[in-house]
């Protein structure tokens, strides 16, 4: 691929918009995922009894279970959210940028 095409794309404001949008999205989701995980670890460290508390008096199920399983589901859901937007909106923008560049 020749260098001038890359240079042209780099200077295209649409490209810069795409990069800014995608970066913001990717980093926000990363921090969200890490934040949830760190919160979970902190809970284990400082308030383990919260996770060990029963969700109701007559149930053996503790809060730790829905929270733990919820984290697994959240990891899956977040990847789903990212893929949906990246493979849809972002890839559309990308296609247009590439089309412009090839003209």
């Amino acid at each position: 691929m020749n260098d001038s095409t890359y240079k042209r794309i780099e200077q295209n404001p649409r490209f810069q918009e795409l990069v800014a949008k995608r970066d913001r999205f990717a980093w926000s989701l990363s921090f969200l995922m890490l934040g949830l995980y760190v919160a979970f670890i902190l809970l284990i460290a400082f308030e383990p009894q919260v996770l060990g508390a029963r969700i109701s008096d007559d149930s053996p199920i503790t809060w730790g279970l829905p929270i733990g399983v919820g984290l697994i589901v959240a990891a899956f859901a977040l990847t789903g959210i990212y893929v949906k937007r990246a493979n849809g909106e972002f890839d559309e923008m990308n296609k247009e940028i590439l089309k412009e560049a090839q003209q």
Partner: protein
Amino acid sequence: MIGRVFSALGLLALAPTLWAAGAIEGEVQRQPLNVSAIIMFVLFVAATLGITYWAAKRSKSASDFYSAGGRITGFQNGLAIAGDYMSAASFLGISALVFTSGYDGLIYSIGFLVGWPIILFLMAERLRNLGRYTFADVASYRLGQTQIRTLSASGTLVVVAFYLIAQMVGAGKLIELLFGLNYHVAVVLVGVLMVLYVLFGGMLATTWVQIIKAVLLLSGASFMALMVLKHVNFDFATLFSEAIKVHPKGEAIMSPGGLVKDPISAISLGLALMFGTAGLPHILMRFFTVGDAKEARKSVFFATGFIGYFYILTFIIGFGAILLVSTNPAFKDSTGALLGGTNMAAVHLADAVGGSLFLGFISAVAFATILAVVAGLTLSGASAVSHDLYASVIKKGKANERDELRVSKVTTLILGVLAIVLGIAFEKQNIAFMVGLAFSIAASCNFPVLILSMYWKRLTTRGAMLGGWLGLITAVALMVLGPTIWVQILGHEKPIYPYEYPALFSMIVAFVGIWFFSITDRSAAANEEQNKFYSQFVRSQTGLGASGAVAH
């Protein structure tokens, strides 16, 4: 208070060993011959060899061999990645952990999973857009080919070697446990089969072996979880209250418990686990088997889903084993311990819920798991030698494809022989540290160079090379001087480096080294490398110029 955070992080400390080798370390008692397991395993081998034959007819070019021509779909690749993650030891080890400690097992599995979304958000599409066959393609994109490929290939080979030894020894122990066969039979069998898959079927066969195994393992585990739930009439409350009643720890199995003494080791291993995954060559190369960034993203989405589902299943299986295995004297020896050790909890549960035929199935799948993982390891080792060392370093990018392929096939054979020899040599050795070390090196050498090459404009060849080697050497040196090798294996009285795992320090060394030797690099070449960043950046973002799927 801080100490408690550390100890909580310490929950991660056992993780990598659980993941890949922990379940099958140490002394195992050979079990009686398990005929149905052997028959099922023979069926699996026959099916996978059939696939290898089919793949061999389709694998002609280098691109077929290294990356299945980029024609694997996101869904298939997701299953294959999940397959790489769901090893025999994670299945047996995590369910055993749930069996003995309850809730802690869930905490461990969550630790494994959180790395994946991050890999998707920050790495997957850039990797796919920049690379072709190996992660060195990405790391050396705008840097000195010779230096960076030599570094990456060394990083790859060291990681592959340690990982391979751990898996071979694991295979030997597992076959004694599950099939009642001899250790050496397993090592030779695994060595021969993995060479056959890779040599003739390349990446296409390796991927399909992994996919089949993943499907078998997921189906088997689903069936077990279903039978456990059926036993309690699909009422989770019953499952847990019954488990609390029969478990020696009682209520404690429903809340966080077991903690680790040494916080630095714990953090170190936690780091190795998270960032090591993003530096494991056999996982990274899977990103090049799909056609474009779109499919690469989908792969991680499906992989995360399958892995998460699998962990939920192992949790149910562990509790099922508390109910159905720990209460049944048929699964215990005279002292009341589980036959074959606690790692057999899931295997005994298979017997309890599905009879001897299903027990055979689960045993065969557990063993097949090792085969699928070592095939991937061998392929990534062979690619590093032929694509990075031979074609790019020795032939300076002027090798013809036929010679390059020949080199990779010869390397595959050599790796196979080496794996068998090492597997036998290490039979009686303590191999627990090897997987931890493999992860630590991946996190301290491969990962820093790779991530900075994609994100940091000012990275130069000198910085990447010196920092990368420093990280690699520090990781190995600290490991040798640490308690496992220096004291337990070499027999010295006191370790020179007091902690179990090196990643915390070796990662800092690598990152600081790369940073320092890059910013102080005032050479003309460095300047030029920085100027090339924008074209790499545009390609990584848009996929313009990326290698696509090969049409047949």
